[in-house]
Protein backbone atom coordinates (compact mmCIF):
# COMPACT_ATOMS: atom_id res chain seq x y z
CA UNK A 1 0.00 0.00 0.00
CA UNK A 2 1.71 3.12 -1.19
CA UNK A 3 0.86 6.75 -1.59
CA UNK A 4 2.29 8.16 -4.80
CA UNK A 5 4.90 10.83 -5.21
CA UNK A 6 4.00 14.39 -6.02
CA UNK A 7 0.67 14.47 -4.19
CA UNK A 8 1.22 15.22 -0.53
CA UNK A 9 1.97 18.62 0.96
CA UNK A 10 5.23 19.57 2.67
CA UNK A 11 3.86 19.39 6.23
CA UNK A 12 2.38 15.92 5.65
CA UNK A 13 5.62 14.64 4.11
CA UNK A 14 7.60 16.12 6.98
CA UNK A 15 5.31 14.64 9.63
CA UNK A 16 5.59 11.23 8.00
CA UNK A 17 9.36 11.49 7.81
CA UNK A 18 9.68 12.53 11.46
CA UNK A 19 7.51 9.66 12.72
CA UNK A 20 9.21 7.15 10.43
CA UNK A 21 12.61 8.35 11.60
CA UNK A 22 11.70 8.05 15.28
CA UNK A 23 10.01 4.68 14.79
CA UNK A 24 12.92 3.27 12.83
CA UNK A 25 15.30 4.43 15.53
CA UNK A 26 13.21 2.72 18.19
CA UNK A 27 12.93 -0.43 16.10
CA UNK A 28 16.68 -0.59 15.44
CA UNK A 29 17.36 -0.19 19.13
CA UNK A 30 15.24 -3.27 19.83
CA UNK A 31 17.16 -5.39 17.33
CA UNK A 32 20.35 -6.70 18.88
CA UNK A 33 23.12 -8.19 16.81
CA UNK A 34 21.96 -11.75 17.44
CA UNK A 35 18.56 -10.97 15.95
CA UNK A 36 19.43 -8.71 13.08
CA UNK A 37 19.84 -11.55 10.59
CA UNK A 38 16.44 -12.86 11.61
CA UNK A 39 14.77 -9.50 11.01
CA UNK A 40 16.57 -9.07 7.69
CA UNK A 41 15.62 -12.45 6.26
CA UNK A 42 12.03 -12.16 7.49
CA UNK A 43 11.99 -8.84 5.63
CA UNK A 44 13.12 -10.76 2.52
CA UNK A 45 10.25 -13.20 3.05
CA UNK A 46 7.86 -10.26 3.49
CA UNK A 47 9.14 -8.76 0.24
CA UNK A 48 8.61 -12.03 -1.64
CA UNK A 49 5.28 -12.86 0.00
CA UNK A 50 3.92 -9.44 -0.87
CA UNK A 51 4.35 -10.35 -4.54
CA UNK A 52 1.92 -13.25 -4.23
CA UNK A 53 -1.14 -12.54 -6.34
CA UNK A 54 -4.52 -13.70 -5.22
CA UNK A 55 -7.63 -13.84 -7.36
CA UNK A 56 -10.83 -12.09 -6.50
CA UNK A 57 -13.14 -13.02 -9.30
CA UNK A 58 -11.67 -11.75 -12.55
CA UNK A 59 -9.29 -9.34 -10.81
CA UNK A 60 -6.27 -10.10 -8.71
CA UNK A 61 -4.65 -8.33 -5.79
CA UNK A 62 -1.25 -8.82 -4.28
CA UNK A 63 -0.87 -9.61 -0.62
CA UNK A 64 0.44 -6.92 1.72
CA UNK A 65 0.91 -8.91 4.94
CA UNK A 66 2.05 -6.05 7.14
CA UNK A 67 -0.14 -7.59 9.85
CA UNK A 68 1.93 -10.79 9.94
CA UNK A 69 5.17 -8.83 9.93
CA UNK A 70 3.91 -6.82 12.87
CA UNK A 71 2.89 -9.94 14.79
CA UNK A 72 6.27 -11.58 14.20
CA UNK A 73 8.52 -8.57 14.74
CA UNK A 74 6.82 -5.97 16.95
CA UNK A 75 8.74 -2.71 16.85
CA UNK A 76 11.39 -4.29 14.65
CA UNK A 77 8.70 -4.35 11.95
CA UNK A 78 9.33 -0.62 11.36
CA UNK A 79 12.91 -0.92 10.05
CA UNK A 80 11.95 -4.18 8.30
CA UNK A 81 9.12 -2.46 6.44
CA UNK A 82 11.33 0.54 5.66
CA UNK A 83 13.89 -1.86 4.18
CA UNK A 84 11.27 -3.58 2.04
CA UNK A 85 9.94 -0.20 0.83
CA UNK A 86 13.42 0.97 -0.14
CA UNK A 87 14.01 -2.19 -2.14
CA UNK A 88 10.54 -2.00 -3.72
CA UNK A 89 11.32 1.55 -4.80
CA UNK A 90 14.62 0.46 -6.31
CA UNK A 91 13.26 -2.54 -8.16
CA UNK A 92 9.62 -1.81 -8.92
CA UNK A 93 9.37 1.93 -8.45
CA UNK A 94 6.41 1.59 -6.09
CA UNK A 95 7.41 4.93 -4.68
CA UNK A 96 10.25 7.39 -4.57
CA UNK A 97 12.17 9.17 -1.87
CA UNK A 98 9.90 11.87 -0.57
CA UNK A 99 7.00 9.60 0.39
CA UNK A 100 9.19 6.99 2.06
CA UNK A 101 8.44 8.40 5.52
CA UNK A 102 4.67 8.58 5.03
CA UNK A 103 4.59 5.11 3.52
CA UNK A 104 6.54 3.65 6.43
CA UNK A 105 4.03 5.19 8.84
CA UNK A 106 1.08 3.96 6.76
CA UNK A 107 2.37 0.37 6.69
CA UNK A 108 4.26 0.02 9.97
CA UNK A 109 2.12 1.80 12.57
CA UNK A 110 -0.82 -0.61 12.08
CA UNK A 111 1.66 -3.51 12.04
CA UNK A 112 3.13 -2.59 15.42
CA UNK A 113 -0.33 -1.97 16.88
CA UNK A 114 -1.48 -5.37 15.60
CA UNK A 115 1.42 -6.91 17.50
CA UNK A 116 0.33 -5.48 20.82
CA UNK A 117 -3.40 -5.94 20.26
CA UNK A 118 -3.56 -9.44 18.81
CA UNK A 119 -0.43 -11.33 19.84
CA UNK A 120 -1.79 -12.01 23.35
CA UNK A 121 -4.79 -13.76 21.78
CA UNK A 122 -2.71 -16.25 19.79
CA UNK A 123 -2.51 -19.88 20.90
CA UNK A 124 -5.38 -19.80 23.38
CA UNK A 125 -7.45 -22.08 21.16
CA UNK A 126 -7.47 -22.87 17.42
CA UNK A 127 -10.58 -20.77 16.84
CA UNK A 128 -9.25 -17.85 18.84
CA UNK A 129 -5.91 -18.08 17.00
CA UNK A 130 -7.63 -17.88 13.65
CA UNK A 131 -9.80 -14.98 14.81
CA UNK A 132 -6.80 -13.11 16.19
CA UNK A 133 -4.94 -13.60 12.92
CA UNK A 134 -8.00 -12.59 10.92
CA UNK A 135 -8.43 -9.43 12.95
CA UNK A 136 -4.72 -8.61 12.76
CA UNK A 137 -4.81 -8.88 8.96
CA UNK A 138 -8.07 -6.99 8.57
CA UNK A 139 -7.20 -4.30 11.07
CA UNK A 140 -3.76 -3.65 9.57
CA UNK A 141 -5.12 -3.00 6.11
CA UNK A 142 -8.09 -1.01 7.40
CA UNK A 143 -5.88 1.20 9.54
CA UNK A 144 -3.26 1.54 6.80
CA UNK A 145 -5.85 2.68 4.29
CA UNK A 146 -7.30 5.14 6.81
CA UNK A 147 -3.82 6.58 7.45
CA UNK A 148 -3.31 6.86 3.72
CA UNK A 149 -6.65 8.63 3.36
CA UNK A 150 -5.76 10.96 6.23
CA UNK A 151 -2.43 11.86 4.59
CA UNK A 152 -4.38 12.95 1.51
CA UNK A 153 -7.05 14.73 3.49
CA UNK A 154 -4.51 16.71 5.53
CA UNK A 155 -2.85 17.73 2.28
CA UNK A 156 -6.04 19.14 0.85
CA UNK A 157 -9.57 18.67 2.09
CA UNK A 158 -10.72 18.41 -1.48
CA UNK A 159 -9.14 14.96 -1.49
CA UNK A 160 -11.97 13.69 0.71
CA UNK A 161 -13.71 11.72 -2.05
CA UNK A 162 -10.40 10.33 -3.27
CA UNK A 163 -9.59 9.14 0.24
CA UNK A 164 -12.98 7.49 0.57
CA UNK A 165 -12.55 5.81 -2.80
CA UNK A 166 -9.18 4.40 -1.72
CA UNK A 167 -10.49 3.07 1.57
CA UNK A 168 -13.49 1.51 -0.20
CA UNK A 169 -11.23 -0.09 -2.80
CA UNK A 170 -9.26 -1.75 -0.02
CA UNK A 171 -12.31 -3.43 1.58
CA UNK A 172 -11.93 -6.69 -0.39
CA UNK A 173 -8.19 -6.64 0.36
CA UNK A 174 -8.97 -6.30 4.08
CA UNK A 175 -11.09 -9.42 4.00
CA UNK A 176 -8.57 -11.43 2.02
CA UNK A 177 -5.69 -10.29 4.21
CA UNK A 178 -7.74 -11.26 7.23
CA UNK A 179 -8.40 -14.76 5.92
CA UNK A 180 -4.80 -15.26 4.77
CA UNK A 181 -3.33 -13.91 8.01
CA UNK A 182 -5.70 -16.11 10.04
CA UNK A 183 -4.64 -19.27 8.21
CA UNK A 184 -1.01 -18.17 8.20
CA UNK A 185 -0.73 -17.75 11.98
CA UNK A 186 -2.62 -21.02 12.50
CA UNK A 187 -0.04 -22.69 10.25
CA UNK A 188 2.92 -21.04 11.98
CA UNK A 189 1.69 -21.96 15.42
CA UNK A 190 1.30 -25.57 14.31
CA UNK A 191 4.54 -26.16 12.37
CA UNK A 192 6.98 -23.71 13.93
CA UNK A 193 5.67 -22.03 17.08
CA UNK A 194 9.20 -20.75 17.89
CA UNK A 195 8.73 -18.06 15.25
CA UNK A 196 5.93 -16.41 17.23
CA UNK A 197 7.43 -14.10 19.84
CA UNK A 198 6.83 -15.04 23.46
CA UNK A 199 4.39 -12.86 25.31
CA UNK A 200 6.08 -10.86 28.00
Amino acid at each position, binding site marked *: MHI*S*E*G*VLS*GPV*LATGAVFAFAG*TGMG*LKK*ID*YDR*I*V*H*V*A*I*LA*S*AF*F*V*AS*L*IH*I*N*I*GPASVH*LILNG*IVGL*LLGFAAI*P*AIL*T*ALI*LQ*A*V*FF*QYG*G*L*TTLGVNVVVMAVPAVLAHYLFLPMLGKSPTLTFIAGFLAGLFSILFSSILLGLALWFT*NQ*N*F*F*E*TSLAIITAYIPVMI*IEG*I*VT*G*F*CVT*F*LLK*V*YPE*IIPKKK
Partner: protein
Amino acid sequence: MVEENFAYGRSFIHKLDPKIRIIASIVLSFATALCDNLYLAMIYSFISIFLILMAGLNTIDVVKRLKPLFWFLLMIWIILPLTFEGDILYRFYGFKITGQGVVLCIKITIKSISILFLFTALIATMTVASLGNGLHRIHVPDKMVFLVLMTYRYISVIEQEYKRLLRAAKFRGFNPGTNLHSYKTFAYLAGMLFVRASLRAQRVHQAMLCRGFNQKFHTLDDYPPNRLNSIFLMGICGASASLVILEMIWVEI
Protein backbone atom coordinates in the same frame (compact mmCIF):
# COMPACT_ATOMS: atom_id res chain seq x y z
CA MET B 1 12.91 -10.49 -10.36
CA VAL B 2 15.29 -8.27 -8.45
CA GLU B 3 17.57 -7.66 -11.40
CA GLU B 4 19.80 -4.64 -11.22
CA ASN B 5 19.10 -3.85 -14.87
CA PHE B 6 20.07 -0.21 -14.75
CA ALA B 7 23.09 -0.56 -12.51
CA TYR B 8 25.74 -1.57 -14.98
CA GLY B 9 25.86 1.36 -17.41
CA ARG B 10 28.92 3.38 -18.30
CA SER B 11 27.39 6.83 -18.26
CA PHE B 12 28.56 9.90 -16.44
CA ILE B 13 25.91 9.26 -13.78
CA HIS B 14 27.05 5.69 -13.22
CA LYS B 15 30.51 6.99 -12.45
CA LEU B 16 29.32 9.34 -9.73
CA ASP B 17 29.86 8.46 -6.10
CA PRO B 18 26.72 6.75 -4.65
CA LYS B 19 26.80 9.13 -1.71
CA ILE B 20 26.64 12.13 -4.02
CA ARG B 21 23.81 10.57 -5.99
CA ILE B 22 21.80 9.84 -2.85
CA ILE B 23 22.17 13.39 -1.52
CA ALA B 24 21.40 14.91 -4.92
CA SER B 25 18.27 12.83 -5.34
CA ILE B 26 17.02 13.68 -1.86
CA VAL B 27 17.48 17.42 -2.47
CA LEU B 28 15.95 17.40 -5.92
CA SER B 29 13.05 15.07 -5.01
CA PHE B 30 11.96 17.23 -2.11
CA ALA B 31 12.30 20.42 -4.11
CA THR B 32 10.06 18.87 -6.76
CA ALA B 33 7.56 17.51 -4.24
CA LEU B 34 7.19 20.92 -2.58
CA CYS B 35 6.76 22.83 -5.83
CA ASP B 36 3.25 24.15 -6.33
CA ASN B 37 3.69 26.01 -9.57
CA LEU B 38 2.84 24.38 -12.86
CA TYR B 39 5.59 26.09 -14.85
CA LEU B 40 8.28 25.33 -12.30
CA ALA B 41 7.06 21.74 -12.09
CA MET B 42 7.70 21.54 -15.81
CA ILE B 43 11.26 22.73 -15.29
CA TYR B 44 11.76 19.95 -12.72
CA SER B 45 10.43 17.45 -15.21
CA PHE B 46 12.92 18.69 -17.82
CA ILE B 47 15.72 18.22 -15.29
CA SER B 48 14.58 14.68 -14.53
CA ILE B 49 14.26 13.76 -18.20
CA PHE B 50 17.70 15.25 -18.77
CA LEU B 51 19.09 13.03 -15.99
CA ILE B 52 17.45 9.94 -17.51
CA LEU B 53 19.03 10.79 -20.86
CA MET B 54 22.39 11.36 -19.20
CA ALA B 55 22.18 7.94 -17.57
CA GLY B 56 21.70 6.39 -21.01
CA LEU B 57 18.86 4.13 -19.90
CA ASN B 58 16.55 2.19 -22.17
CA THR B 59 13.48 4.45 -22.54
CA ILE B 60 11.00 1.60 -22.73
CA ASP B 61 12.31 0.04 -19.52
CA VAL B 62 12.17 3.41 -17.78
CA VAL B 63 8.57 4.01 -18.85
CA LYS B 64 7.60 0.47 -17.79
CA ARG B 65 8.66 1.37 -14.28
CA LEU B 66 5.84 3.92 -14.20
CA LYS B 67 3.19 1.20 -14.31
CA PRO B 68 2.38 1.23 -10.56
CA LEU B 69 2.09 5.01 -10.72
CA PHE B 70 -0.14 4.82 -13.78
CA TRP B 71 -3.03 3.23 -11.86
CA PHE B 72 -2.91 5.90 -9.21
CA LEU B 73 -2.85 8.67 -11.80
CA LEU B 74 -5.77 7.07 -13.62
CA MET B 75 -7.75 7.08 -10.40
CA ILE B 76 -7.10 10.74 -9.57
CA TRP B 77 -7.82 11.82 -13.14
CA ILE B 78 -11.22 10.18 -12.79
CA ILE B 79 -12.04 11.45 -9.30
CA LEU B 80 -10.36 14.83 -8.83
CA PRO B 81 -11.74 16.89 -11.72
CA LEU B 82 -15.26 15.90 -10.65
CA THR B 83 -14.89 16.39 -6.94
CA PHE B 84 -12.47 19.27 -6.56
CA GLU B 85 -14.09 22.58 -5.70
CA GLY B 86 -13.41 25.46 -8.06
CA ASP B 87 -14.46 27.25 -11.21
CA ILE B 88 -16.55 25.08 -13.44
CA LEU B 89 -14.85 24.34 -16.70
CA TYR B 90 -17.36 22.01 -18.22
CA ARG B 91 -20.71 20.55 -17.30
CA PHE B 92 -22.49 17.43 -18.48
CA TYR B 93 -25.37 15.36 -17.14
CA GLY B 94 -25.11 17.03 -13.77
CA PHE B 95 -21.36 16.39 -13.47
CA LYS B 96 -19.07 19.39 -13.13
CA ILE B 97 -15.44 19.42 -14.13
CA THR B 98 -13.47 22.10 -12.33
CA GLY B 99 -10.45 23.93 -13.66
CA GLN B 100 -8.64 23.65 -10.35
CA GLY B 101 -9.19 19.88 -10.35
CA VAL B 102 -7.72 19.51 -13.80
CA VAL B 103 -4.74 21.75 -13.01
CA LEU B 104 -4.06 19.77 -9.84
CA CYS B 105 -4.15 16.51 -11.81
CA ILE B 106 -1.67 17.90 -14.31
CA LYS B 107 0.60 19.10 -11.51
CA ILE B 108 0.48 15.77 -9.68
CA THR B 109 1.14 13.89 -12.90
CA ILE B 110 4.16 16.00 -13.80
CA LYS B 111 5.60 16.03 -10.29
CA SER B 112 5.17 12.33 -9.61
CA ILE B 113 6.68 11.30 -12.92
CA SER B 114 9.59 13.70 -12.38
CA ILE B 115 10.33 12.35 -8.91
CA LEU B 116 10.25 8.76 -10.13
CA PHE B 117 12.42 9.61 -13.13
CA LEU B 118 15.09 11.18 -11.01
CA PHE B 119 14.97 8.27 -8.61
CA THR B 120 15.48 5.93 -11.55
CA ALA B 121 18.28 8.02 -12.99
CA LEU B 122 20.19 8.54 -9.76
CA ILE B 123 19.38 5.61 -7.43
CA ALA B 124 18.24 2.70 -9.59
CA THR B 125 21.49 3.12 -11.53
CA MET B 126 23.54 1.76 -8.66
CA THR B 127 23.79 -1.75 -7.30
CA VAL B 128 22.27 -2.39 -3.89
CA ALA B 129 25.83 -2.94 -2.67
CA SER B 130 26.74 0.61 -3.72
CA LEU B 131 23.50 1.93 -2.25
CA GLY B 132 24.50 0.35 1.06
CA ASN B 133 27.91 1.90 0.81
CA GLY B 134 26.43 5.31 0.05
CA LEU B 135 23.95 5.07 2.92
CA HIS B 136 26.78 4.10 5.25
CA ARG B 137 28.73 7.17 4.23
CA ILE B 138 25.84 9.56 4.79
CA HIS B 139 25.78 8.16 8.33
CA VAL B 140 22.72 5.96 8.15
CA PRO B 141 23.12 3.63 11.18
CA ASP B 142 25.08 0.41 10.54
CA LYS B 143 22.15 -1.78 11.49
CA MET B 144 19.89 -0.13 8.93
CA VAL B 145 22.47 -0.50 6.17
CA PHE B 146 23.02 -4.10 7.14
CA LEU B 147 19.26 -4.74 7.00
CA VAL B 148 19.04 -3.37 3.47
CA LEU B 149 22.01 -5.40 2.23
CA MET B 150 21.03 -8.62 3.97
CA THR B 151 17.35 -8.40 2.99
CA TYR B 152 18.32 -7.85 -0.61
CA ARG B 153 20.79 -10.74 -0.48
CA TYR B 154 18.14 -13.25 0.54
CA ILE B 155 15.23 -12.05 -1.60
CA SER B 156 16.32 -14.16 -4.55
CA VAL B 157 16.99 -17.19 -2.34
CA ILE B 158 13.51 -16.97 -0.83
CA GLU B 159 11.94 -16.27 -4.19
CA GLN B 160 13.45 -19.54 -5.46
CA GLU B 161 11.98 -21.33 -2.46
CA TYR B 162 8.59 -19.79 -3.19
CA LYS B 163 8.73 -20.91 -6.80
CA ARG B 164 9.61 -24.45 -5.74
CA LEU B 165 6.76 -24.54 -3.23
CA LEU B 166 4.25 -23.17 -5.72
CA ARG B 167 5.40 -25.60 -8.40
CA ALA B 168 5.05 -28.51 -6.00
CA ALA B 169 1.54 -27.34 -5.09
CA LYS B 170 0.60 -27.03 -8.77
CA PHE B 171 1.97 -30.48 -9.53
CA ARG B 172 -0.41 -31.71 -6.90
CA GLY B 173 -3.31 -30.14 -8.70
CA PHE B 174 -3.52 -26.74 -7.02
CA ASN B 175 -5.41 -24.38 -9.29
CA PRO B 176 -5.68 -20.90 -7.76
CA GLY B 177 -9.12 -19.39 -7.88
CA THR B 178 -11.52 -17.26 -5.86
CA ASN B 179 -12.22 -19.66 -3.04
CA LEU B 180 -11.33 -20.38 0.53
CA HIS B 181 -9.16 -23.35 -0.39
CA SER B 182 -6.96 -21.16 -2.61
CA TYR B 183 -6.62 -18.49 0.06
CA LYS B 184 -5.72 -21.14 2.60
CA THR B 185 -3.11 -22.63 0.28
CA PHE B 186 -1.51 -19.23 -0.33
CA ALA B 187 -1.58 -18.57 3.40
CA TYR B 188 0.29 -21.82 4.01
CA LEU B 189 2.78 -20.99 1.26
CA ALA B 190 3.41 -17.58 2.79
CA GLY B 191 3.68 -19.19 6.23
CA MET B 192 6.19 -21.69 4.86
CA LEU B 193 8.25 -18.81 3.49
CA PHE B 194 8.41 -17.25 6.94
CA VAL B 195 9.40 -20.59 8.48
CA ARG B 196 12.13 -21.17 5.91
CA ALA B 197 13.32 -17.60 6.33
CA SER B 198 13.59 -18.02 10.06
CA LEU B 199 15.46 -21.33 9.80
CA ARG B 200 17.79 -19.85 7.23
CA ALA B 201 18.41 -16.86 9.46
CA GLN B 202 19.60 -19.25 12.17
CA ARG B 203 22.06 -20.90 9.82
CA VAL B 204 23.31 -17.61 8.43
CA HIS B 205 23.82 -16.32 11.92
CA GLN B 206 25.78 -19.48 12.76
CA ALA B 207 27.90 -19.03 9.65
CA MET B 208 28.64 -15.47 10.71
CA LEU B 209 29.68 -16.64 14.17
CA CYS B 210 31.97 -19.24 12.57
CA ARG B 211 33.72 -16.49 10.70
CA GLY B 212 34.37 -14.46 13.79
CA PHE B 213 31.53 -11.93 13.51
CA ASN B 214 32.06 -9.43 16.31
CA GLN B 215 29.11 -7.11 15.85
CA LYS B 216 30.91 -4.89 13.42
CA PHE B 217 30.14 -4.45 9.76
CA HIS B 218 32.78 -3.49 7.27
CA THR B 219 32.51 -1.94 3.84
CA LEU B 220 35.26 -2.21 1.29
CA ASP B 221 34.20 -0.05 -1.65
CA ASP B 222 36.34 2.95 -2.20
CA TYR B 223 35.35 5.99 -4.22
CA PRO B 224 38.30 8.23 -4.90
CA PRO B 225 37.45 11.94 -4.70
CA ASN B 226 36.48 13.17 -8.11
CA ARG B 227 35.83 16.76 -9.12
CA LEU B 228 32.81 15.69 -11.16
CA ASN B 229 31.11 14.62 -7.95
CA SER B 230 31.22 18.02 -6.32
CA ILE B 231 30.39 19.83 -9.55
CA PHE B 232 27.33 17.62 -10.06
CA LEU B 233 26.16 18.04 -6.49
CA MET B 234 26.62 21.80 -6.61
CA GLY B 235 24.74 21.92 -9.92
CA ILE B 236 21.77 19.99 -8.53
CA CYS B 237 21.65 21.92 -5.26
CA GLY B 238 22.07 25.23 -7.08
CA ALA B 239 19.26 24.43 -9.51
CA SER B 240 16.94 23.27 -6.72
CA ALA B 241 17.67 26.32 -4.57
CA SER B 242 17.11 28.79 -7.38
CA LEU B 243 13.84 27.14 -8.37
CA VAL B 244 12.63 27.18 -4.78
CA ILE B 245 13.55 30.87 -4.42
CA LEU B 246 11.97 31.62 -7.76
CA GLU B 247 8.70 30.08 -6.60
CA MET B 248 8.77 32.14 -3.41
CA ILE B 249 9.22 35.37 -5.37
CA TRP B 250 6.58 34.31 -7.89
CA VAL B 251 4.01 33.93 -5.15
CA GLU B 252 4.93 37.41 -3.93
CA ILE B 253 3.99 38.84 -7.31
